[in-house]
C-alpha cells in the first residue's frame, strides 16, 4: 500500500519532527549554487490542480525538480469538473500512467482522500476544500522552529477567516500535536462551530487574541466573502481584524507575523506590517515551502520511505 500525506490530523510528533529535520537539509540544498539532488531521478510526479493555484503548484514543481523528478502539471478548470465522476475517472486515468506520486488540490473537502483510495501511488494533499493543507502547516512549523527553536510552549494566534480555511485547520492540528497553545481570532461569523473542541481558545478581539502571542498568523480573506453576510465590508473588517502595527503592539516584542499568501494588503494586513523585516517572515515561509515539499516528496517517493516514520 502506498503511503500518503492527506492531512496533519493523525500524524505523530515524531514524524512531524522527522519531516522538519529532513526539510532542514533541503534548505541547504536550495541555497547552494547547484540546487539539484537527484534522489528522485527517474520518478514521475503529477501535479493535478482542480482549483487554481500558482504558488503551491510552483512550489511543488520547484521542489520535485530540485530532487530530479519528472514533473507534469495538470490544471483542470474547476468548471469542467463539477461532477465527481470525473474526479475518479481522472484519478484512474492518471494512475494508469504509473506516476510515483500525485499532488492534488481540490475545492471539495475529502476529495483528495477519495482519490487516494483509487490509485496505487503516493498522494499528497495540496489542499482539499476547507479540510486540510498539510504542507502549508509543515512549512509554517519549519519557519517558526528555525526562528524560535521550538514550537513547544509558544502562543500562536491564527486570525481571520477560520471558517473557510484549510490552512487554519492543518495548523491547529500541527501546533497542538507539537505542544503550542493555539488561539483563533475573528468575527463570530468566520469561526466554525465547536472549534474549541479542536483544542483552541476562541477570541473575537485582536486585543485579547494577540496579547503576549509569540506568533501571529494572518489568513487570507477570500474576496467573495468580503462583503455580504459574513463581513459587512472590507473597511470594517480591516478596522477590527486587519493587522497593523497598533494591534501588533499587544503581542510579545519579538512576535513573528506570518501569512500563507497571497495577501490582501489593507484588508487583513497592513503593508507596514507585511513589509516589516523585523516582524514579517512571509517571504521566508515561501522559501521553507520548497524545502518542506522536497522533504515530503522524498519521504513518500524516495529511497528513504522507511526512515520518516508514521507518514500516512
Amino acid at each position, binding site marked *: 500500500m502506498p503511503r500518503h500525506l492527506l492531512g496533519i490530523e493523525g500524524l505523530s510528533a515524531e514524524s512531524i519532527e522527522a519531516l522538519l529535520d529532513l526539510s532542514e537539509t533541503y534548505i541547504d540544498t536550495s541555497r547552494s549554487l547547484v540546487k539539484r539532488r537527484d534522489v528522485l531521478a527517474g520518478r514521475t510526479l503529477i501535479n493535478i490542480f482542480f482549483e487554481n493555484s500558482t504558488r503551491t503548484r510552483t512550489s511543488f514543481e520547484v521542489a520535485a525538480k530540485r530532487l530530479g523528478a519528472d514533473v507534469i502539471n495538470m490544471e483542470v478548470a474547476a468548471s469542467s469538473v463539477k461532477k465527481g465522476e470525473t474526479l475518479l475517472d481522472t484519478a484512474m486515468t492518471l494512475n494508469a500512467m504509473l506516476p510515483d506520486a500525485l499532488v492534488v488540490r481540490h475545492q*471539495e473537502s475529502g476529495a483528495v482522500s477519495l482519490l487516494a483510495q483509487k490509485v496505487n501511488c503516493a498522494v499528497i494533499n495540496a489542499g482539499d476544500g476547507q479540510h486540510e493543507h498539510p504542507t502549508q502547516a509543515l512549512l509554517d512549523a519549519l519557519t517558526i522552529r528555525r526562528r524560535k527553536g521550538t514550537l513547544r510552549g509558544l502562543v500562536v494566534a491564527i486570525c481571520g477567516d477560520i471558517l473557510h480555511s484549510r490552512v487554519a485547520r492543518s495548523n491547529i492540528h500541527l501546533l497542538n500535536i507539537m505542544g503550542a497553545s493555539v488561539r483563533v481570532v475573528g468575527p463570530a461569523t468566520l469561526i466554525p462551530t465547536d472549534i474549541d473542541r479542536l483544542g483552541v481558545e476562541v477570541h473575537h478581539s485582536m486585543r485579547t487574541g494577540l496579547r503576549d502571542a509569540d506568533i501571529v498568523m494572518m489568513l487570507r480573506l477570500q474576496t467573495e466573502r468580503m462583503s455580504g453576510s459574513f463581513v459587512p465590508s472590507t473597511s470594517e473588517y480591516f478596522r477590527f481584524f486587519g493587522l497593523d502595527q497598533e494591534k501588533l503592539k499587544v503581542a510579545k516584542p519579538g512576535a513573528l507575523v506570518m501569512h500563507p499568501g497571497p495577501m490582501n494588503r489593507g484588508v487583513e494586513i497592513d503593508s507596514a506590517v507585511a513589509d516589516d523585516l523585523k516582524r514579517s517572515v512571509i517571504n521566508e515561509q515561501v522559501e521553507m515551502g520548497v524545502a518542506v515539499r522536497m522533504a515530503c516528496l522524498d519521504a513518500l517517493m524516495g529511497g528513504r520511505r522507511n526512515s520518516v516514520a508514521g507518514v500516512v
Partner: protein
Amino acid sequence: MAAPTDGRPVAYINARLIDPDAGTDQRGAVLIGDGKIADFGPGLFASGAPYGIETIDCKGHCLAPGIVDLRVHTGEPGEEHTETLDTAGKAAAAGGVTAMCVLPDNDPPFDDASLIEFVHRRARQVQLTKMYAYGALTMDLKGEQLAELGLLSEAGAVAFTDADSAIGNAQLMRRALYYARTFDALVVHLPQEPTLSGGAMTSGEVATRLGLAGNHPLAEAIMLERDVRLVEMTGARYHATKISTAQGVDIVRRAKARGLKVTCDTAPHYFALNELAVGDYRTFAKVVPPLRVEADRLAVIEGLRDGTIDAIVSDHRPQDVESKRVPFAQARPGVIGLETLLPVSLDLFHNGQLGLAAIWRLLSSGPARLFKLPGGRLEKGAPADLVLFDPDTAWVIDPDKFHSKTGNTAFDKRPTQGRVLKTIVDGRVIHRDATRWPAAV
C-alpha cells in the same frame, strides 16, 4: 413465487403473538380466512391444531402485523436503474413490510392524478407489498404553487408532501394547510428551514474537523415551531417527518401536550447512528436531515419511548454508485432501508429500550392509523397482513444480499439481530426466508 390465495383458511399456530394495540406479547395463534384475520388470540387452538384446515407451526417465532412503512422512494418512474416498484416491492416483502407509501419526488413528480393511478396500477401488477402513493403538496415540488390536492385525493393519494424539500414560504404553507383541511387531507412535511439546512452534515465538531458546511440542528426546531403555530391556526392534519434532534422531539412533545393535531416519525438512522458514522467522508451516511450528535440520538429514542414519535419509517432512498462515489458535499443524500428497518428497529428491543409490542406500534399500527390505512393490526376482519420473524437470529448486514437494486445502506457490515421468516399480505405468503422455511413448510 407466491401462490394466489384461494381463500381457504390457514392457521398459524404456536406463535409468539405481538399485538401492538393491546400491548401484548404472548403465545397464541392466528386463523386466516379469505385473506383476513378470522380469529386470533392466546386461547385459539390452545388445545391443539385444528383438524381439516391447513396448519402452520410457527415454532415459537414472533407473529405480528406487517410493517407499514410511510416513507419509501423508488426510482419508478424516472430513475428505474436505481429501483423499480417491483424491486422495491421485493425488498419490502423481504423486510417484513406489508404496506408502503411511495414518495412523490420522481420524474415526473406525482403532482398529477395519473401518476397516483400509475403507482396503484403497478402495485396491483407487482402483487407484493401494498403500495400507496403520496401526492405532491406543490406543483413540481417547487414550493411555489399548490398541487391539485382535491383531484389527487380523489385519485387515491394517501397524504401530501414535497418529500425531502421543505416549504420555506410560510404564507404558502399556511394556505397549503388550510386548503388540505378542505379535503381532510394529511400534510406531511420535512421540517427543515431551507436557509439553515444547506450543509452536508450536522454542524459541530465533526463537520468543523472535516471542513464540511454544517446543517444546523436549529433548522429543524425553527421550522417545526413555525409549523406548529400554523397547525394551531389552521386546524389542519399535520405530520412532521424524520425528526432528528432533541429540540425537534421536544417541540412535538409540547405541541401534543397542548392538544394539537401534530404527529411525527423518525427513521432508524436517527436512533441507531450519529454524526460519527460519517467517519472519513462516508457518503453512505449522508442523509437529509443529516445524522446528528449523540445527545440528539438519545433524545429520539426517548421520543419513541414516551409516545412523542408516532412511527418509524425506513426513509428508503436508493442511489446509484455514481451519485455516491464523489466528494461528500457533492454526493446525493439517502440510504436504502426497507430490508434493515426491522432488524435495526429491534435494536431498541435488544437494548432494553422498548418491548416488542411497543416497537410494533411504531412500525405497524401507529403508522397505519396515521394514514388511515387498513392492516397494521391484529383485529378480526382486518386484512391478514402479517410478518413472522425471529427477533434473535444474528446476522451481518450485507447489501449484496438485498433485493434492492442499489446498496447504499448506512448499516453495511453492521452485526444485527432479527430476521423476517415470512411476510404475508391478504393471507398470501409474499416472502419466505428460504434458509429457514423451505418451500415444503
